């Protein structure tokens, strides 16, 4: 049998044997009821009448819930300024997929059958669906934000060349393999325990407290693991949890609410889609003199996290480039569509697309390799190192990454080879591109940059580890186990990682913003260090030796190299000496500040950098394409676990590639989502994985700031490495007019969009000959 090495995912053995339990797998709950939520099929209108008589009469039905049954406040928005997002529709319908009512029955099948019997009368009214409709209607959901440095208008006008255009990027469905689910179990005296698939147990807790009209100390939320989140379970879990908890309170029985896949895709929020209008001025050297980027995003029917997402988009509008004169504006639009939410990258990917398009346009205008335009515009210390929002960015690492990657990937020679290939290949065209990523690490809502841990050592030396982060596949627990293990010097099997639980760590931040290891790792290290030091003190007392001569290693107390007693004996000794064997750890990220009103400050503790070269081939007859090869060089500081980090890089890249090339959300004119299941919404399969994937971690590059082990966050940044695929496609397409015309490819680059772009370039190419 293989011994699970401490680097393997802590749950891997359970994963591969089917023993890992997800919420829906928990079967030992007596009297469990099942809920089915019925959603609005109308995008906008009024709920005139709701006849649920036949639903109530249907076999197995125990309860039917509507807005009137919410004991507390019928709101999920969880925002101090009131986002206005009701759990159940009261009268006004503002989006397809809003919950109208829920049926609670003795089986899921009975609940579903009953739900079909409802008579719902609605009066439709005109809806705002697309981003362009929203812009025309000026339906802002929040005030616009602007970053202004220098004078972009003048700079653009005074430049030798000007370009302008627009770019559309679609949204993205998270498609976590495990759908939204919660189980609420009523406890005595009005308390409620909820097992939820969520990235944010504390938010579920406080939302439930509001919904139920109780205080937070009555609600416990726990999460052992979730089957993927990607941002989609940051705020979106409250729907299932809310219905389950209200039903459990009403029936005094445990209730499970699990959305089926279609409901999940229709009802829950997605990545924001954007229209980006750009204008730029530049001279012969390719340097951007002035740029204006206008971001209009579709936020959907409620605010949710849209402000923060759009803030992050603005904060990444520069990507890796120094912008001397820039006007960066973000408009946030209300639409009658599902309320868009967090998704890996959190607005930054969309933010970067704009400036990367500008770079591309410059390259086409000047007939240069886009890489050279990128290099020309990169941040450089000392004179070109301040971001539009005022934070210093030291680009040394990024410059090194691009240099090394250009060389290792043989970008320059491959680019030439590809051009030769294309000359002899009328139908299949290849393309190549290198794009960089600079991603700011920290929550821009400064208060979220905190975490806690709680460590228990029992008398037999076994340890329970609690911290505030949720394991969603990113390997967080594996990394944190390693940290604690290193400090206490015991085997991983002696430490049990516990379900994330609001009972253990209160007021947790969401597991998001790539920061979970940074924050929780530090908190756990601090708790473990406290206990370590206490144990040393105990030993010093017992052995009458100075603390400095004592140390823990390999599960033994040592003086010098000599083992004296085992960790377990030492623990027991501490117990007998009446020394506390549990400790909390707390961490807050230092040195960050941000003023969201003036949009200035240093919101990021550090930046994570990377770059990728992608090579593609495109079929000019159908617009189909394939990514043949990708080379990635990415920075993770001093890695806590190289395999896990590489897994995050590859997973993020492929997920980003899906967003940019094939995942297409289509709403009809009435605002009804047409692509709400995997049969119509396509995420990458194994075959989409490029034939060659070379992923390298940047060596000898410890984090410059004090982070856990000098590592760097890795969850989100790699997603944006996939922008290289979009640009490689563009390169391939532009070959049809001898690389003279910018294809202005929109996202996602589906076969249809690629073919459209090919035709456009061909036409313009002929016209300009």
């Amino acid at each position, binding site marked *: 049998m293989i011994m699970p090495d401490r680097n*393997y*995912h802590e*749950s*891997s053995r*359970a*994963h*591969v*044997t*089917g*023993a*890992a*339990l*997800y919420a*829906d797998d928990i*079967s030992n709950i007596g009297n469990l009821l099942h809920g089915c939520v019925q959603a609005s099929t109308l995008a906008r209108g009024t709920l005139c009448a709701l006849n649920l008589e036949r639903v109530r009469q249907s076999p197995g039905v125990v309860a039917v819930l509507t807005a009137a049954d919410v004991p507390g406040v019928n709101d999920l928005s969880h925002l101090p300024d009131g986002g206005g997002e009701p759990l159940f529709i009261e009268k006004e319908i503002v989006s397809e997929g809003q919950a109208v009512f829920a049926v609670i029955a003795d089986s899921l*099948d009975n609940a*579903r*059958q009953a739900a079909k019997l409802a008579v719902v009368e609605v009066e439709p009214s005109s809806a705002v669906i697309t981003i362009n409709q929203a812009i025309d209607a000026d339906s802002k959901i929040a005030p616009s934000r602007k970053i202004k440095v220098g004078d972009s208008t003048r700079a653009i006008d005074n430049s030798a060349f000007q370009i302008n255009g627009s770019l559309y990027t679609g949204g993205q469905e998270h498609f*976590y*393999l495990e759908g939204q689910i919660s189980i609420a179990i009523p406890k005595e005296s009005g308390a409620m325990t909820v097992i939820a698939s969520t990235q944010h147990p504390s938010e579920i807790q406080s939302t439930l407290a509001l919904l139920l009209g109780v205080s937070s100390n009555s609600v416990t939320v726990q999460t052992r*693991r*979730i*089957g*993927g989140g*990607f941002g989609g379970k940051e705020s979106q879990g409250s729907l299932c949890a809310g219905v389950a908890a209200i039903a459990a309170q009403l029936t005094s029985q445990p209730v499970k609410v699990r959305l*089926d*896949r*279609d409901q999940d895709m229709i009802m829950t929020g997605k990545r924001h889609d954007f229209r980006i209008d750009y204008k730029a001025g530049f001279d012969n050297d390719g340097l951007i003199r002035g740029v204006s980027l206008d971001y209009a995003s579709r936020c959907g029917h409620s605010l949710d996290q849209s402000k923060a997402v759009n803030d992050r988009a603005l904060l990444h509008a520069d990507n890796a480039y120094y912008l001397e004169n820039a006007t960066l504006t973000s408009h946030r639009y209300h639409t009658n569509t599902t309320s868009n939410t967090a998704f890996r990258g959190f607005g930054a990917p969309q933010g970067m697309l704009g400036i990367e398009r500008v770079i591309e346009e410059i390259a086409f205008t000047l007939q240069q390799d886009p890489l050279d335009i990128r290099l020309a515009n990169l941040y450089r210390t000392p004179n070109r190192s301040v971001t539009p929002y005022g934070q210093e960015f030291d680009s040394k690492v990024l410059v090194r990454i691009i240099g090394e990657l250009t060389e290792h990937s043989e970008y320059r020679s491959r680019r030439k080879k590809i051009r030769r290939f294309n000359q002899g*290949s009328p*139908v*299949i065209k290849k393309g190549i591109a290198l794009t960089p990523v600079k991603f700011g690490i920290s929550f821009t809502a400064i208060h979220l940059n905190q975490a806690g841990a709680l460590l228990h050592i029992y008398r037999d030396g076994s340890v329970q580890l609690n911290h505030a982060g949720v394991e969603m*596949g990113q390997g967080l627990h594996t990394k944190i186990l390693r940290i604690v293990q290193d400090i206490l010097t015991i085997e991983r099997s002696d430490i049990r990682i516990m379900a994330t639980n609001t009972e253990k760590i209160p007021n947790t931040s969401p597991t998001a913003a790539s920061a979970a290891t940074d924050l929780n790792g530090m908190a756990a290290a601090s708790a473990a260090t406290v206990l370590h030091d206490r144990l040393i003190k105990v030993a010093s007392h017992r052995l009458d030796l100075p603390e400095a001569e004592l140390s823990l290693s390999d599960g033994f107390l040592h003086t010098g190299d000599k083992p004296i007693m085992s960790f377990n004996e030492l623990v027991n000794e501490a117990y007998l000496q009446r020394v506390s064997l549990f400790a909390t750890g707390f961490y807050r990220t230092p040195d960050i500040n941000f003023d969201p009103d003036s949009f200035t400050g240093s919101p990021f503790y550090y930046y994570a950098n990377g770059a990728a070269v992608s090579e593609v*081939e495109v079929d000019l*007859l*159908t617009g189909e394409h*394939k990514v043949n090869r990708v080379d990635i060089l990415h920075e993770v500081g001093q890695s806590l676990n190289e395999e896990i980090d*590489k*897994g995050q890089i*590859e*997973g*993020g890249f*492929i997920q980003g590639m899906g967003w940019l090339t094939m995942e297409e959300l*289509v709403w009809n004119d009435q605002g009804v989502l*047409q692509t709400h*299941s*995997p*049969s*119509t919404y396509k*995420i*990458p*399969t*194994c075959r*989409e*994985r490029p*034939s060659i*994937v070379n992923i390298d971690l940047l060596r000898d590059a410890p984090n410059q700031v004090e982070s856990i082990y000098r590592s760097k966050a890795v969850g989100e940044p790699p997603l944006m490495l996939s922008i290289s695929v979009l640009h490689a496609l563009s390169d391939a397409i532009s070959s049809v007019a001898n690389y003279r015309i910018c294809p202005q490819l929109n996202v996602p680059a*589906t*076969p*249809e969009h690629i*073919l459209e772009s090919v035709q456009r370039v061909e036409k313009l190419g002929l016209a300009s000959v």
Partner: protein
Amino acid sequence: MKDVIQFLFRGRIEEVIQPLPNLTVLNWLRERKGATGTKEGCAEGDCGACTVLVGSLHSGKLEYRPVNACIRFLPTLDGTHLITIEDLMSDELLHPIQEAMVEHHGSQCGFCTPGIIISLFGLYLEKSRSNTGLTRKEIDDALAGNLCRCTGYGSIVSAAYDAFSSKRSGWVEKNIQETTSLVESIRPKKGVALDVHHQLYFAPTTLEHALGLVKAYPDATLLSGGTDIALQVTKRFDRLDKIIYLGQIEHLKSISKSNEGWTLGSGVTFSQMMGISDQIHPHLLATLERVGSVQIRNAGTIGGNIANASPVGDLSPLLMCLNAVLTLRTNEASRKLPIEEFFIEYGKTALRSGELIESIFIPRLPANSRFSSYKVSKRHDQDISTLLGAFRVDIDQGIIIKVIIAFGGMAEIPKRADNCEQALHQQPWSQAILASAAEQLSNDYSPIDDFRGSAKYRSRVAVNLLHRFWLEQANPEIPHRINYYPDNIVNDHA
């Protein structure tokens, strides 16, 4: 007839008396057996999280094939061996695939993992019978029906290479003799008849019996692989009150060959057809491989695909080009019908009440035939066609003496391009003639806009596909299709 089904499960014979006809294997496992290793990710056959292995006897040999438990009704397991993720370990020892998945970090959130492992295990069993090394294409094929949102697949691919290089076998492989005789012992000799909560289910074992039932219950749903029909239950939450399951009828699964051509029983699965498609025409495979996924092709039958009469069904345009003829049977009579006459309008076929598709005859292509077909979809694998074009010309001394062009996705039924065909008939086989004939396609089809593609896109690509047909025949040395597996990439298992 009996009202109990028997199948091998966890090493013993499981007997389920009066199983609910609409109960899926997935729900039975998870809800009745507490076997929660098999997951639900979509309940429609698209994500693979529910993948299980079903072993059944084919001419005395036990063959295991991955299928989607979410769209498979429990009673159809009668006489089979069901293997789930929980079965793979033996004596606390992980199967080589499980071990490699741990070592290569093949799981992140782990939710897709059981399904992925079962799919790879299906391939593992298949490969254990051959001596060839594992290729990247085989991995991609095996996993085409398994979505993973976390890993990007790289770690899974490396795990597969690693596991397959191990020669160690698990208990399934070791016990195949014993298991075969156990499965032999429960081979359904008698048909099944169930009446549970007013839901009727029949699984006859002979065609005659089936035809009698079809006559007696003309409103019953015919069930073959269930990859279309089961979705009514798992997605629309409808109930199928009367089911006649055709999957236990050996006759319908047979393939026979004569001098004139091939006769395929309507119950032949896509996987089975792929096994002989090269004999019919070497270009068939490339399109058949793109129907659904391994799991779907293991369950989905050609009869079901035709009867379903979907405008985007992939088989019909191919069969039209091949001049296939259907044999339709009732209790009393049998008739033959060229396939294009089967489709009348959207949702309407020539199938009469009391009738079923017995077989499909595919005549041998003459030596002067040129044939190709192209499926176009947003994603290469497990995607429904935006459109599919199938082309055939028979050429005699440079003149097109026979031409068939058929498209899926361009009309409300799979349909031939009459005008375009006419423009080509008896004309020289030349680029200019083809280009001008292609203009006729706009008279043949007025496709629709939908989320798979606009009418404009479909029309444009239809023309381009005809062009590709020409290019590939005229200039075979230049690449005209995307090359997924360039020669210089043997595998990426560094």
